[in-house]
């Protein structure tokens, strides 16, 4: 269990070499909506090139946690740092956080349906993102090879000229993961990537995420236990806005409280 380390105060002096090796460091985060505590003193640390699976019942705070990390929701209390303590996430705008290298995949596949698969990747590719500069072609200079390279990783290279709206549900999920890769992020937040996928697609997605996690940190929220098992990574179970248990899937699923609130007897 890693929970113990989460409460050590890290040094966040930007002038000095950061001391926390964590890519993502959340400490004591609380968010409440009209009195309902969506997150209750949540602490979580994700290391470099670490993949973590997050499980937990509905309303456990999984999506709110992603909202806090990506700057969509500001917590009432707590600290959130990214990239070895270099970035204070609570002081950054959504676009700045994305630009700093945190990519987020939504639960519902969210791609640009009326544009081609290739253009979807083009829009996601790292590069200048200004409104004015885009008129004069700053985006256009990105190479075709780079787009195909990303599409090959998510097995969509053949569909490069196809409108994204014509893809199957599973392919849209992959395209969105491809868009995240095109952003070249350090940390990927992936919300229920295999919901609605066939078994074969689920297996392929597990392989894809594992290969991504060789060089990047990945946080996966998922209900599908077969999939979580296939990932074979550390699991964090959230409940009522805080960490209930952390460890391997076997450890977590043996935990009395986890069985009680989530897995069922």
């Amino acid at each position: 269990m890693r929970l113990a380390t989460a409460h050590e105060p890290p040094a966040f002096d930007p002038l000095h070499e950061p001391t926390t090796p964590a890519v993502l460091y959340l400490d004591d985060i609380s968010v409440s909506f009209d009195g309902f505590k969506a997150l209750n003193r949540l602490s979580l640390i994700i290391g470099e090139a670490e993949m973590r699976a997050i499980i937990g019942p509905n309303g456990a705070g999984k999506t709110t946690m992603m909202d806090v990390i990506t700057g969509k929701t500001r917590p009432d209390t707590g600290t959130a740092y990214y990239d070895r303590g270099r970035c204070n996430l609570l002081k950054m705008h959504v676009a700045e956080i994305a630009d700093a290298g945190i990519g987020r995949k939504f639960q519902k596949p969210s791609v640009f349906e009326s544009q081609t698969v290739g253009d979807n990747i083009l829009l996601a590719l790292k590069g200048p993102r200004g409104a004015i500069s885009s008129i004069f072609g700053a985006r256009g200079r990105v190479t075709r090879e780079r787009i195909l390279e990303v599409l090959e990783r998510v097995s969509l290279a053949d569909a490069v000229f196809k409108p994204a709206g014509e893809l199957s549900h599973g392919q849209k999920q992959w395209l969105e993961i491809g868009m995240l890769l095109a952003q070249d992020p350090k940390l990927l937040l992936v919300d229920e990537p295999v919901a609605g996928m066939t078994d074969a697609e689920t297996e392929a997605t597990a392989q894809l995420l594992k290969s991504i996690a060789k060089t990047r940190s990945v946080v996966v929220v998922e209900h599908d236990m077969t999939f979580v098992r296939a990932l074979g990574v550390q699991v964090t179970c959230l409940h009522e806005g805080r960490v209930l248990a952390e460890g391997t899937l076997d450890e977590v699923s043996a935990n009395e409280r986890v069985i009680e609130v989530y897995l069922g007897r």
Partner: protein
Amino acid sequence: MFLAVLAAMAIVVPALNLLLPPASLLHIPGQTVELLGKYLCYALLALAIDLAWGYCGILSLGHGAFFALGGYAMGMYLMRQIGARGVYANPLLPDFMVFLNWKQLPWFWHGFDHFAFAALMVVVVPGLLAFVFGALAFRSKVTGVYFSIITQAMTYALMLAFFRNDMGFGGNNGLTDFKDLLGLPLQAPGTRAALLVATILALAGSYLVARLLVTSAYGKVLVAIRDAESRVRFLGYRVENFKLLVFTVSAIMAGVAGALYVPMIGIINPSEFRPEASIEAVVWVAVGGRGTLVGAVLGAVGVNYLKTVVTTGLLAPFWLFVLGGLFIAVTLALPKGLMGAREAIRKLMNRPTSVPSAIPEAAE
């Protein structure tokens, strides 16, 4: 193709109007030139709406306000051109100010003696309003129907303000009784033909600007915002900046349309700010097919031609029903408007005959 049609129109219509004697069969009467000019001003307004709505999903129901502001800026210049030829023959003040017993020109009327200043204001006033309004709305993430409603409120508030005599824009009557534009008599056929050509040039120029915007990478981001705004946001784009730019450009185009409209029609009054006027303009775009630019122009000209025909005939009292019916019919039967229908027919024509049997029927 679209530009070629505009170019042909710019040459042929004035030529047939000015060069042929009225008795000739091919002669185009001055009234038709005026009507065409009016339609094309509406077409430019529709193009502006389509740029923001069709490509970025920003449904403004207040574009009539930008159109009217551009019109007022031009109207103020035209008022100053009247000089001492007004009913009260006051060389310093427009008639309505004399009537209100004002002694001096309000500060915001200064500068409108010069065409260049007025032309600048045609662009700056709608552009600035759109910029400030858009900055507040887009930064606060006001989207969809909520945005549409506040644009309605904006144009309604401006209408009420311009109705007041104290505002200094002629109140209820607005600005009218214009004499010249750049020293040319407004009623002369030559001036009207020149105005038509100017309108065509403005429409063509705006079309090119819009095309440039939507075909660039910027346009791809706009469409992406339309289809999945939060995805774009989480990819690291400042969505509000993209929206603000397209909304401001669109408002400027609407202002130019209004400025060309006023000398053609000869009057500008607060009724141009009517909320219904903005909604009607959105219907033109929907009928033509949004997100196509050319469709917006076709829709504006087509619906307004229909309006001219209907409101001068027996159906006159029922125009709004006709318009409403048209909107419902298009929404149900042609969700992509006239351009969508053209596209669908073209696709059906190109299909090989071996495809399902239902298709030939649909092609008829």
